[in-house]
């Protein structure tokens, strides 16, 4: 067995957890404007986060140019690789220990090379968010194969280029529902229905109707899902009209529940970092610092799910705060 010391990486000034738009942008900003040593930890085998598997409109507000999702991720990746930031892909942060002594926080990480610990003066948490899965939405019915979220669907289509179903039923009233519809159409899946519930704002609903007309699929409003049908594979949904109470059945072999994002707080839950009692997001101050000094949070881990470019801008902003905090 190797001595204990060799399992510790060199201490750094800033450890960034999560290589999505927020984490990447923060790294770029830190590398470009300071001499702080920065390490980035990403669990997937490549950087980029969610945009890697999406299609449309990336980089409008941060890069001032429109890219595809993959193009956007690749660009940030390229830029980052040219900096001094130490990039650790395929590396999962297992836990963070705030205030591990002498002004350092400690992170326990694992990669195919082994378990390591790394100490850092500041941590930026940018672990993003995920869509509430079907199970968490208390949707009644059976538990067959063929139920996805946009995230898992796009990941499946991107990684494996496969056909996730023949006829999809999409639930959701946020922009992501539309992104999901486009992904499905591109992959060659027919849309059985788009079920728009009440929570959404006006514009996505309007766009949904437009898409429905364009691609000839029904957009159903004011529906409550009363049952998921199908024993082994999804066969359809049973819906009840919220107004008339009338019940109907729509057929499809794929159900995609979209939106209703929740922050991915697995790393924070066991720590003393204070969380919002409802959303579980870490509570941050104006400097985007959590309740633990020099642990910062940015991107979709805090607040509501926003577009990637806003997260990226927030990443740049938090970088400035980190720089200031470490100078002082």
């Amino acid at each position: 067995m190797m001595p204990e010391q060799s399992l510790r990486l060199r201490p750094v000034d800033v450890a960034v957890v999560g290589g999505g738009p927020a984490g990447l942008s923060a790294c770029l900003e830190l590398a470009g404007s300071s001499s702080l040593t920065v390490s980035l930890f990403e669990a997937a085998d490549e950087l980029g986060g969610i945009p890697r598997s999406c299609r449309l409109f990336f980089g409008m507000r941060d890069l001032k140019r429109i890219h595809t999702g993959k193009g956007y991720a690749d660009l940030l990746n390229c830029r980052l690789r040219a900096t001094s930031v130490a990039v650790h892909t395929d590396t999962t942060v297992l836990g963070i220990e705030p205030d591990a002594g002498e002004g350092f926080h400690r992170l326990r990480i694992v990669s195919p090379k082994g378990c390591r610990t790394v100490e850092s003066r500041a941590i930026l948490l940018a672990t993003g968010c995920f869509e509430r899965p079907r199970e968490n939405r208390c949707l009644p019915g059976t538990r067959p194969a063929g139920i996805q979220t946009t995230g898992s669907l796009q990941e499946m289509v991107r990684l494996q280029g496969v056909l996730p179903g023949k006829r999809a039923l999409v639930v959701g009233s946020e922009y992501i529902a539309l992104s999901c519809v486009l992904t499905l159409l591109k992959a060659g899946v027919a849309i059985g229905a788009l079920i728009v519930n009440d929570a959404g704002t006006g514009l996505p609903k309007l766009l949904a109707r437009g898409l429905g007309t364009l691609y000839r699929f029904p957009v159903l409003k004011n529906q409550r899902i009363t049952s998921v049908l199908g024993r082994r594979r999804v066969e359809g949904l049973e819906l009840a009209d919220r107004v008339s109470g009338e019940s109907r059945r729509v057929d499809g072999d794929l159900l995609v529940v979209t939106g209703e994002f929740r922050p991915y707080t697995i790393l924070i839950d066991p720590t003393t970092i204070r969380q919002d009692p409802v959303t579980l997001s870490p509570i941050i101050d104006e400097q985007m610092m959590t309740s633990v000094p020099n642990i910062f949070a940015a991107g979709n881990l805090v607040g509501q799910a926003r577009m990637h470019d806003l997260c990226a801008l927030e990443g740049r902003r938090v970088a400035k705060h980190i720089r200031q905090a470490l100078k002082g």
Partner: protein
Amino acid sequence: MKTRADILKPVAESEVLIIGAGVIGVSIAHELTKRGIKPLVIDREADVGMGISKSSGGFVNAGLMPVIDALVKEMTGGDPLAEIDSDRLRSMQEGYAAFDPQLHDLAVAHRHLDSLILARNEQELATLRRLMQLAEHFPSVALQWLEKDALFRREPNITPSAVAGVYDPAGTILVFSHDYVVAVAENARANGAEFWMETRCRAIDHYDGVYRVTTNRGTFRARFVINCAGKYADRIADMAGAGRDWTLSYFRTQAFILDRRLNGLIDSFITFPPAGMMVQALSPLLGGNLLLYGSSIEPVSDPEAVETLEADYQSAIETMQQLAPALRAADIITAYTGVRVYCSANPDDHTITAAPNQPCFINVIPRMPGFTPAISIAGRVAAMLEEQGLTLGTHRDFDSKRIAIPRFRELDEATRNALIAVDSRYGKVICRCETVTEGEVVEAIRRGADTVQGVMFRTRAGMGRCQRNFCGSQLMAVLSRRKKIALNQVTFKGSGSEFLARRPTKNPTPVSPKLLEDDTKKKP
């Protein structure tokens, strides 16, 4: 070309064929391997323990549970002490005593759990006092009365309306039910039992003292058939023409799994005194999640009525707030509905009987709960087979020890590094919510997990907060690679539950990743 002889040739034969690989079926198989028999086990599902066993909470208890049963019996007008000398109680006590050593041999994760029954008002206090009185007749349980202070010292997060409670220290062994069934099956297989999954019975013939069981995977031959088909035991008995004078009735219950964030909120099994058919209970689980029961046991006519209804969720959400007010609906990460079965032959006891006209066809339908007495039932079935002329000896090289799949999350750093040094896949976390590595997934597949659900239940991958949102496609990819099957053949829980659609023949152009890439380049 296949000749008639080929078709009739059995795919496998043995002295004993067990139909159904639930906890009862695998326990009997395990017992028989100990006695030198190499039984065949067939099951319609893609994995062992996928029927009633899957919906078991994994609470093994032979002390408090019979006392509660007695109380319920009294409340419904029966004799509470009728069971005190019953076979069933003995089988539960025997099974319970054998459980702990079995868990150690088979390296099944478990813990001993305290139970608390809470009273909130005078009526419930009276029920609990009666429970204490009845418990005196049951030597295997030592209940304690807890006043309010002591109760809240033990469990500070329970409902503030509790005024007193009955405490059963460490009387329950908690396992993850599927983990246990898999462990028993693995050990039985290591000692000679043969398992055939996704094997559905079509016909059972009997002549010349030999049973021929025709299935979708060919014909099996055996001298003895043991019917452990659970919810389908009646159909199997009918196939054999085994003249039954009993029927099955089905009851559905729901279980809700709550987020691991709540780990530590409670540390014992918590419930209210029995009231009608309502089950309200909250318990810690081994992975750190909580389990909630919050519905009534409801008779149903369809053994496959496993959908969770809107009303079930409402009832669960009300119950969780009654038990521990800190719980929220948003903490429900998943819900299950299970259907359990009762046999009319003897509603208060196990039905372990040979068919009247066929002494070599044995029906085994345990009276719920089935986990606690499983080992004891297996012993009885073996004795019955012996009586009918099966020669049982001892398996000379019986290896009672099993090594569990390493659980990365629960290992210390040195052990983790030792694992990664041997196989770097133990350093690749696939499921972030539950910290499960690719190494564990690969090992589960090597041991016989053929489906995503099989991998989930063996490793916990995908069972956490995000419910396969992040890791679903990776689990599929690993299964496809390891089993050398196409991605669209990977299933959730056996054939018919494929994740991907077969490509429609009209559109033969494959949507390959390359195509998608080219496509993105064209866009501005």
